[in-house]
């Protein structure tokens, strides 16, 4: 039975809302304080993960873009056959 919930009146109905967010659903000061020991470490972790994802993409695209396809002979465009009159018997 959590008591950290404050109700908001929306269209006559009550929605439960954590008291750690204000009425505009923005984090309150107490939430920022609770997150504060982990802000820097989380930021570094996020940057590291983003960097890892970007580097994987970069490496893959560069590796793939180096492929040479000169040895694959592209066949000539097919010669168009004269339009055969459909045997439409008049």
């Amino acid at each position: 039975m959590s008591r950290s919930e404050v109700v908001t009146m929306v269209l006559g109905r009550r929605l439960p809302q954590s008291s750690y967010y204000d009425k505009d659903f923005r984090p309150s000061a107490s939430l920022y304080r609770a997150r504060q020991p982990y802000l820097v470490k989380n930021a570094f972790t996020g940057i590291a993960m983003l960097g890892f994802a970007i580097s994987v993409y970069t490496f893959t695209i560069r590796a793939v873009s180096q492929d040479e396809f000169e040895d694959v002979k592209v066949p000539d465009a097919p010669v168009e056959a004269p339009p055969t009159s459909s045997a439409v018997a008049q």
Partner: protein
Amino acid sequence: MATVPSICSKCLRQAIRSTPKSTTHRSFTASASKSPSTPPTRRIHHSTRQRTPAIEPQNHSNATPYTSGAVRGRQTDQAAAAQRQPSRVLLQPNNLFHSYTHSPSPEIRQRAAFMRQNAYCPHPDHHASPEGGEAAVAPPRHVSHECPDCGIPVSCSPDHFVDDYASHLEICDLLRQINEDDHDLLSGRFFPEFEYPGPQIDEAQVNLTNWDTLLYSREFNAVNEERPMRQVTRLLTYPITVGSVLHELSPYSLNDRLLPEGLRSLSALRHTLHPPRSGAGVDIKGLRPNPPPMRLFILGARAESSLPREVWLQLSHLFPRSSFHLIFIGPESMSGRDHEYPLPERTPINPFGQIVEDRLGGQMKISTYVEYYHTLHEAQHFHPFDPYFDAFVLFHPGLGHPASSHEWKETLPQLLETKCPVICTGYTEFDMERDISWVRESCGGEADLLMRPGENRFRSLRWDLNDADPGDVSCGNWGVWAFRGKRYEADEYRGKEGDGSGGWDR
């Protein structure tokens, strides 16, 4: 020369006061309500340690808006919930600073009168010079002049006040904060911070890094301002300090302040406090044998024994799968609980007249003994002690304090003999260091340090005023440390490291 730092029992009582109820039953909801206390009618031992006496308002039927309005958060009590909103607010938030002598509240005016009768002016002219060559310039006089910035009488005359202004400036801001906090308690506002949450599911971990993470992970109501934070931590510091040391996610580790001997003791206790899951359930198939409860002996209990039981239940909510038995022992363990007098008779079944409050929240039981601990120990009342189940907690015991250390002389060897950890707190660093050196000298080499002294992460954020010396501010449980009797065990030889000195030098 500092006089005794001691928690102002009057302040604490103001914080926990609520409407009086009948005392016939000792259930949880009744014990949460306390009437403003009158001086206890019976004291077995009069402690010589100086503290504020129990000066009370003339009649508590003349309830201030605070006492009628701010009934403490009892979630299950509808009548209390209806009473919670006060009919009028005595003081607005921007109107909280008042001189103590001219305060709108009669209790604070009474405190100011007490200060004028008991507190002495700290100006050096009143004291003999340190070399002992001359007598004091002026005889000691009581304070009467109030500082205009903090509203508390601190000097005997305006001249001494101006003379000593530099040293007063150091604490003037703090005193003003104390002033505003005191008036805030009596302002009759709604106190959402005093609505405590119930138990949590096991999987919801508690974060014991600091107050903010703890309150968030325990799903307290969000406390955005600093003033309510100070008010709520002042009460919660007692159970949470103990919980933060004992919990397996404790912030004190081997890298921090814990010593290897401390880890041994705490691991034994954590084995009981965090038992492995046994598949227990609420039906017949879920019946499992349960271990006995963890016993916490709170010695020298004064104000903490009168804390509302919801506050002590927060300790059991930190440990969802274990049960607790809190035992308050001390000559003043009934201070602030005057509506529970007269004490039970001493019968063969109840030889020391203990008051038992059982079935608190399903996992806690609280017993109170108005007796010295050494008496109970000699009677072997709690024997046998088991380091897996028992621990001692001393909240600001004043072990080394000259006025109270003689009372602990007999108890210390008995505590060391039980080999159970003793967790101590202190008002200030100086207080703690004095306690530690006293233990170190008196133990005769029989004590091991378990946790090095330092600031308690879960100390009270609110500073308290000593009415008998307005220059003396202290906060509850500022620091925490722990010791235990030395255990002699055959162990492998580890060279010079394990020299058995007890860790006091680290």
